[in-house]
């Protein structure tokens, strides 16, 4: 209840702070308009036509199922990656050996292009949900893992000693000592992972499945329908913006309220 009240009270200030972001987005749209006027509608349709196409797609009800399918795949892969990555990252961060060992693995996983995973996944999982979900999972895992690992490694040794001196049981060490600190590293990682989860999901659908936004993009491409292509892209980007600023950012603010308290860091 207290939490809800605090969220509601912080809402106007948060929305107000969105004006800057809105202005910068509108500037982008203006540049797009300029480009459209320069190259013509065949190369780059102007924003108004694109948004009209998108509105028509949404109104006819054709867009929702495709968006829902892509969202399901992207979020399933992301959730799996966050669960596995943060768990493993925390464990690896607790041991020096494990964190040293995992470094090259992370480089290896990050260096492997998602498209290569996609080829493998198509062979392993076929044309169902498995392919995009797996590809998203593999693409997001190292990002989340590194965040959790870094967070765990950087916890102040003094606080760890304090926790031992006061005999905190393992549950309290996890929930009251490690997680609040690790969250500061894990959250930015999750936001990055969210972005790549959508990109990778659309890419996987484009090549591997017959439904979802990616498949719809493949159809518009074959029809040379630039307006519809851009409309789909706008829909995906719009959902991404909504998720990041509507869900993740408020959660992050709530979790890190202590950071802004007092305006400065406490003594080490």
């Amino acid at each position, binding site marked *: 209840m207290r939490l809800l009240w605090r969220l509601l009270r912080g809402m106007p200030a948060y929305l107000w702070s969105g004006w800057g972001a809105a202005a910068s987005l509108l500037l982008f749209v203006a540049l797009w308009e300029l480009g459209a006027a320069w190259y013509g509608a065949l190369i780059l349709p102007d924003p108004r036509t694109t948004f009209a196409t998108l509105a028509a797609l949404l109104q006819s009800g054709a867009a929702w199922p495709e968006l829902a399918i892509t969202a399901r795949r992207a979020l399933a892969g992301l959730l799996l990656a966050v669960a596995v990555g943060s768990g493993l990252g925390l464990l690896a961060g607790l041991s020096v050996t494990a964190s040293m060992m995992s470094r090259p693995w992370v480089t290896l996983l990050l260096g492997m292009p998602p498209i290569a995973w996609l080829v493998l996944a198509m062979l392993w999982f076929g044309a169902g949900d498995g392919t995009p979900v797996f590809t998203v999972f593999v693409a997001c895992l190292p990002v989340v893992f590194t965040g959790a690992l870094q967070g765990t490694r950087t916890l102040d040794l*003094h*606080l760890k*000693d*304090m926790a*031992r*001196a*006061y*005999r*905190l*049981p393992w549950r*309290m060490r996890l929930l*009251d*000592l490690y997680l*609040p*600190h690790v969250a500061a590293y894990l959250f930015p990682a999750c936001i990055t992972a969210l972005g790549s989860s959508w990109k990778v999901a659309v890419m996987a659908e484009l090549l591997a499945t017959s439904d979802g936004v990616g498949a719809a993009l493949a159809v518009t491409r074959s029809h040379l329908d630039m307006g519809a292509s851009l409309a789909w892209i706008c829909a995906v980007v719009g959902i991404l913006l909504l998720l990041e600023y509507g869900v993740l950012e408020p959660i992050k603010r709530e979790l890190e309220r*202590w*950071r802004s*308290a*007092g*305006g*400065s*860091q*406490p*003594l*080490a």
Partner: protein
Amino acid sequence: MTLGFSLQVRGLDHAYGPTAVLQGIDLDLPAGRIAALVGPSGCGKTTLLHLCAGLLEPQQGRIDRPQGASAVMFQQPRLLPWMVTRDNIALGLKARGMARAQRHQLAREMALALGLPEASLAQYPAELSGGMQSRAALARALVLAPALLLMDEPFSALDVGLRGQLHQLLLARQVQSAMAVLLITHDLMEAVRLADEVLVLAAAPGRIVARYRPPGEPQRRGDALVHRCAAELLQHPEVRAAFDLPAQAAADAGMGEPSPEGGGKWLPAAQCRAEHAGHGC
């Protein structure tokens, strides 16, 4: 001594790799007494405290801790920055599995007793001043009602007035309970003011070179007595050597004539090699 020993250390050696840090430490701390451990920086004081707190395993020798709880107050407050003061103070109680309402009640009582304002209980440590943070750290230790309190230069970052206040609060609490306190400090005045017994540690390797008992009870020592005892402590040749002070001229020392108000008492220390009639070891 009828009281049981709260902390007993026998023949403790400790080394970090090839470097000996502590050598042949013997220490007896009865319940209800305060021992102060003074010594120069890097003489192994903190290592000894970590050993006593169980944060390090003894390599050689034995440490017997009391059955009841022990609590540690560190050099920095070390409060969890993401917890409000009340939760920080109640941390040790929560670790013991005490119910939320009860531990908040105890934390609040302790905080108020130590002079923390009610409003600060709902604030994060970053919002508190240094003195408030130290009070909160002391409250976190005392709220456990420990049988043994280990303190590592807990007041070194505070100004004279605040330090004096916290000394009084600590002594008042310590008299009420039969708590034993091991205080580490490099401030001789603080040691002489608070302790029943002052142990002087010399560096490389850390060993106890002098034991000194200031007169009277800690609560009743006035400023003048504390100054005189600190001066007396500083005249001991082993103490001067431990702190790397130049040796004193005999005329300056004035050890032969006991002060009319009565000074402290020197006790035998195992590792004392000074040949001086005045200090009795």
